């Protein structure tokens, strides 16, 4: 599984939305499924699947799929 496939799968399972809905522009709190509770599930799934530790700044900053990619980029996970 490529990194981008993995990312889409994590978003899709954590938020309970179809993979097709996981686009760069998808934003936190833009759908009922991505609320603050689901956000914490998402964070811990990202940590498990990519074997990283996210801090509180990362959680607050992760406002969209696009930003999530940038934050994972800081952990040397790239999506190109």
């Amino acid at each position, binding site marked *: 599984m490529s990194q981008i496939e993995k990312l889409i799968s994590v978003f899709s399972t954590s938020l309970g939305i179809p993979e097709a809905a996981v686009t760069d522009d998808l934003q936190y709190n833009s759908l009922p499924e991505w609320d603050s509770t689901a956000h914490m599930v998402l964070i811990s799934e990202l940590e498990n699947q990519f074997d990283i530790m996210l801090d509180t700044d990362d959680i607050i900053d992760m*406002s969209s799929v696009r930003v999530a990619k940038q934050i994972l980029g800081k952990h040397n996970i790239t999506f190109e």
Partner: protein
Amino acid sequence: MNVDFKSQYLAGLETLMSQPIYQLPQMEKEALLFPVVESLHHLHRDRCEKYANITRQNHSNPRLLSELPYLAVRLFKQLELSSINKDDIFKVLSSSGTTSQTPAQVFLDKETSARQSKVLVKILQQHIGRQRLPMLIIDSPSVLKDKSKFNARGAGIQGMAFFGRDLTYALDENMQPNWPAIEQFHEKYANQPVLLFGFTFMVWLYFLEFIRNKGASLDFSQGTLLHSGGWKKLEDQKVDNQQFKLALYEATGIQSCFNFYGMAEQVGSIFVECSNGHLHTPVFADIIVRDPLSLASVEIGQLGLLQVISSLPSSYPGQSLLTEDLGTILGVDDCPCGQKGKYFSVHGRLPKTEVRGCSDTHQGAA
């Protein structure tokens, strides 16, 4: 209206956000905070008719935070005070004041809600760092279950959850200690850095007392407890901050313990205790103490009603609120802990919460 108060507000807030949280001397801080709170005042006058009516007789030319209009906090129980369109309401926070029948209602849009989380994180990072730790919540998971009733306790826990991993609840659905859950958490994380969070009286009644009566003791010597809420619910038991800390140490080994003060009507801008037990004002917020009768602001060391000022709420007019809590400014810029700005203590509630002119505003120059 020619002036765009919203952009003025956001620009001022950005400047505040870039400042160190506890290092600005009071004068410098007020110079930055005043324009932000003033633009919030104008913004809410434009967007909330009730607020505009209440504050009609504004001080003509306010220059100080204490001269800007403020609302009695109880107004949020009596009126729906909102500065946003119905469509923009993201959540309505209702505070579950145990004694009062009507809960306060606080209208949040996404923007204000996100700002509250961000500032809460910025403030708490000063005390517990940026890393997330295994977290034991001294509360029941049921407080988060009913999403339709988004209450202040749930909101507090949710805000704090950003700091935790492997979130474990120490109480069960019936608010009884869940000893197996506590023991399991202890087995996994004893003698490691962990975070405990709860409301002061619940930590005392349902956690510390329980452990003591059980004759048990836990080893969270590398842990930190954050707890919020005053001591008024523990007054009959004559528990003060020092006794609390001692009991905490005996039951859990925790030496790092911070109380914080904050209003449900101003989520995010909280006042955290330092190593000297003094509550400190962060750059985003401030405290004024007023005489309960004259409502004039009082000197350092004098007891009075606490007025809380926050730079965060743009969706409801809650930037300056007169609380029903009594407190004292202990000093300005000179706490031995090194943090600048005002520091204060809270002494419980005004016995009979009859703040003068409850359906009116209060003018700073009074």
